[in-house]
């Protein structure tokens, strides 16, 4: 069933060969072909803009009030590209290799190599759009380091790289709106895929302001709807981020791949109480300069600055001397959890570790003093100069931290703890980004393809824009070339009517429950089950129990949820109920997938499978495959395996020591 359609030939020639031989659609025919793009983050906005430029008739949808607000906007640290501007040994192969290794050998070689190949074009394209990347005094682009690499290949715009890249893509999109090539539907949410003769031919969307259902035809449908991290309730995702579009696609026949591969980011602001609605990330770029530590003594209640140097345990530097504080995210997160579980955690909850900038402040201060040719500068002054440098590099992040916690991170080390941040799993796609439903594509975080079991920092922005700017414009044409004789289907077609009725019935059913418990309370309970049993550490027993609990929660939800208001009006509680209903079903599949994968790899850590020193223990003989789940019936999936073949990289025990 699964044919990844990977082109033959040597790895480094596959994409060039593909582009040289894929079918093309001539400009006159492009005007007759309609494409639906759902989601306007980096993947969706870049795809909609690029396809509009090519001449396709594009309809783009987002649930926010403007495409510029998609959650890509919140990405902080940067975007990787194999430019080797720093002359430090980077290359397309290195970026490819680091990404495959970082993903713990669970990603597809051909896709990742293509990603590395187009990475440089992304930077060029963004610069041409006027994205104000950080620059050096000579006027050239600046780079910094991110986890899991030993080169400086991350391009950035202070701590707002995602914002600047998204605004670039948004502006390109709005330009196509102005030119009439793209029609934009804001405050619209996709609630069903419409299939005709087995192909995706449109969507049912709900106008969130009027509450009405709409039918939209497309020769192809692109889902660029992001990840499903909000299944955990608490995550760094935006409140509205959801799995609904992807889940509807899944129930229409698109297999869902590796749903248990979720990323827990090591440096987030810790939870402060039951009221918490979301978690805030502190960029990985902070690990360039911040040092992570806990007290050497268990249950140490002294404040950080009273703990002398020799009584601090810089555990990442101790355990992983080669990469130190810049180990990949999965490794850093597990190490923090291990310290806290053993009683070394800090803060009132004891579920936190320190991220300390004191050394960096002194180091930068001395450099500044050196620049002025001064010696014997008093420490106070060095610290003050150092703080200025740190402020320039990370000021906005430090401000965010202070607003949330009320503590000044220039004086006290930050308290941080891992939190759900990204999902590597997603809709299964082939080399062309097409799902198992013909005509239905998935781009960006919504697909599973490039990050294996763990994503490296600054690679999500790269993948979103690679898919939208440089992959889909080629691969979509390859199949739309066969559609030039297919006329647009009238939305009065019975398939549209049936799909709309199904959505209407579902909404009616939700509204008629009139139970006692709020949507939010169900979401919180779901999140707790998944976090406790399918979070940073998983066991067979825990997962089996979680499946039973989620199934029971689903029953309770469908018999006791309370949704105020009515259908044909703006009703945010109804929007949320639609999303939570799908998260519950997805939560079950995540546990099923985690239970099936009897190994540990990347972010998937099964306690039964670990090395004597607590590292993830892969089982390549039995699990070197993509687990793609086909929906059969309620609580019932069948597993399709796509074997992962490594022609170039030799999988080994991942080591950052």
């Amino acid at each position, binding site marked *: 069933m699964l044919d990844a359609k990977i082109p033959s030939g040597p790895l480094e020639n596959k994409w060039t060969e593909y582009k040289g031989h894929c079918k093309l659609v001539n400009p006159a025919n492009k005007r007759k072909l309609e494409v639906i793009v759902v989601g306007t983050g980096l993947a969706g906005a*870049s795809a909609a*803009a*690029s396809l509009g*430029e090519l001449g396709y008739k594009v309809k783009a949808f987002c649930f*926010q009030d*403007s495409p*510029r*607000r998609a*959650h890509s*906007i*919140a990405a902080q640290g940067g975007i990787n590209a194999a430019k080797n501007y720093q002359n430090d040994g980077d290359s397309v192969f290195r970026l490819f290799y680091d990404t495959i290794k970082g993903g713990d050998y669970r990603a597809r070689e051909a896709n990742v190599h293509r990603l590395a190949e187009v990475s440089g*074009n992304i*930077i*060029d394209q963004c*610069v*041409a*759009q*006027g994205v*104000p*990347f*950080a*620059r050096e005094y*000579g*006027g*050239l682009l600046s780079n910094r380091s991110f986890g899991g690499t030993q080169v400086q290949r991350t391009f950035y715009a*202070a701590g*707002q790289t*995602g*914002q*600047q890249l998204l*605004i670039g893509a948004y*502006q*390109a999109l*709005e330009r196509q709106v*102005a030119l009439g090539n793209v029609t934009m539907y*804001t405050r619209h949410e996709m609630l069903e895929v419409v299939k005709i003769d087995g192909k995706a031919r449109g969507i049912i969307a709900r106008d969130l302001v009027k509450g009405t259902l709409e039918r939209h035809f497309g020769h192809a449908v692109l889902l660029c709807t992001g990840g499903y991290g909000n299944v955990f309730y608490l995550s*760094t995702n*935006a*409140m*509205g981020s959801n799995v609904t579009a992807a889940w509807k696609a899944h129930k229409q026949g698109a297999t869902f791949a590796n749903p248990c591969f979720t990323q827990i980011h090591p440096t987030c602001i810790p939870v402060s*109480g039951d*009221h918490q*609605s*979301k978690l*805030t*990330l502190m960029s990985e770029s902070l690990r360039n300069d911040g040092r992570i530590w806990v007290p050497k003594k268990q249950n140490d209640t002294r404040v950080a600055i009273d703990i002398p140097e020799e009584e601090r345990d810089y555990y990442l530097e101790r355990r992983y001397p080669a990469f130190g504080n810049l180990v990949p995210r999965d490794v850093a997160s597990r190490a923090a959890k291990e310290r806290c579980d053993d009683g070394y955690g800090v803060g009132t909850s004891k579920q936190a570790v320190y991220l300390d900038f004191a050394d960096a402040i002194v180091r930068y201060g001395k450099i500044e003093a050196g620049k002025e040719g001064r010696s014997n500068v008093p420490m106070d002054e060095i610290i003050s100069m150092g703080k200025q440098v740190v402020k320039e590099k990370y000021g906005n992040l430090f401000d*965010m931290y202070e*607003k*949330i916690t*009320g*503590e000044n991170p220039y004086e006290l080390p930050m308290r941080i703890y891992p939190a759900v941040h990204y999902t590597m799993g997603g809709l299964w796609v082939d080399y062309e980004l097409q799902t198992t439903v013909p005509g239905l594509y998935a781009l960006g975080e919504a697909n599973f393809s490039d990050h294996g079991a763990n994503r490296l920092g600054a690679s999500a922005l790269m993948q979103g824009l690679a898919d939208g*700017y*440089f992959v889909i*414009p080629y691969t979509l044409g390859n199949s739309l070339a066969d559609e030039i004789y297919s006329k647009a289907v009238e939305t009065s077609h019975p398939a549209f009517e049936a799909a709309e009725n199904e959505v209407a019935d579902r909404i009616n059913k939700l509204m008629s429950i009139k139970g*006692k418990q709020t949507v*939010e309370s169900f979401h919180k309970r779901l999140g707790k089950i998944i976090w406790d049993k399918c979070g940073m550490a998983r066991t067979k027993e825990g997962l089996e129990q979680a499946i039973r609990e989620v199934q029971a929660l689903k029953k309770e939800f469908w018999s006791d949820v309370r949704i*105020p208001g009515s259908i044909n009006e*703006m009703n*945010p*509680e109804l929007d949320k109920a639609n999303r939570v209903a799908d998260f519950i079903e997805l939560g079950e599949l995540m546990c099923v997938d985690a239970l099936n994968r009897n190994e540990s790899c990347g972010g998937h850590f099964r306690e039964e499978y670990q090395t004597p020193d607590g590292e993830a223990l892969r089982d390549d003989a039995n699990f070197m495959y993509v687990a793609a789940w086909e929906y059969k019936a309620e609580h019932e999936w069948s597993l399709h395996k796509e074997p992962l073949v490594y022609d170039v990289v030799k999988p080994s025990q991942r080591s950052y020591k």
Partner: protein
Amino acid sequence: MEHNNLNLTVKVWRQKNSQAKGQFESYPVKNISTEMSFLEMIDVLNEELIVEGKEPIAFDHDCREGICGQCSMYINGKPHGPWQANTTCQLHMRAFNDGDTVVVEPWRAAAFPVIKDLMVDRSAFDRIVQAGGYVSVNTGNAVDGNSLPINKDKADASFAAAMCIGCGACVAACKNSSAMLFLSAKVSHLALLPQGEPERHSRVLNMVAQMDKEGFGACTNTGACEATCPKEISISNIARLNQEYLVASLVADK
């Protein structure tokens, strides 16, 4: 961090839809931890309203970390509330005292009609961008990113303008409901970079024309926009906009 609990009265603008007439309603909220964010306090209130069988308060919000620009509450007479350089979602309850009455309204501007309760329609901003807030470069046309060195100070100034999150607080704060700070940030972002040069004149003329068409008011230099901007976009951008507009008007063909 030390924290304590507050009891407050929240006086909120309720409006069923764009046609309906709105009014203030007051709600007591109890045991609000000072560690909560302002929106989490609204979440708590909404949960109580739902359980009581009432309609929760509709409001725009998404990222809850101060960058998406979706949250838009006018709190105690100030867009985004009492803190400087802050969005509503970043405001925390330690900004308030036990017993306070907190007044919450939507953005008020003719160009931002109310959709429901605290939600407004800001699509006018998208249409202003459509009028020219971009560089016309198709995907695939770009040359190497380092082939065009850009003076660091200019690049930094461009970035400082590009940080605008499009929330509309500048319009809400202005007695004329002017969108000049928003527009000037976009014009400055692109005018300061060589990439923006070819369309420099047409961009500013078209964007200003669209702004006027949307019904935003004129700028009378009160500076309320700068004082309230969560991203501290400088009012000097408005000076640059005026200069760009003047030059463009003098040299433009049309």
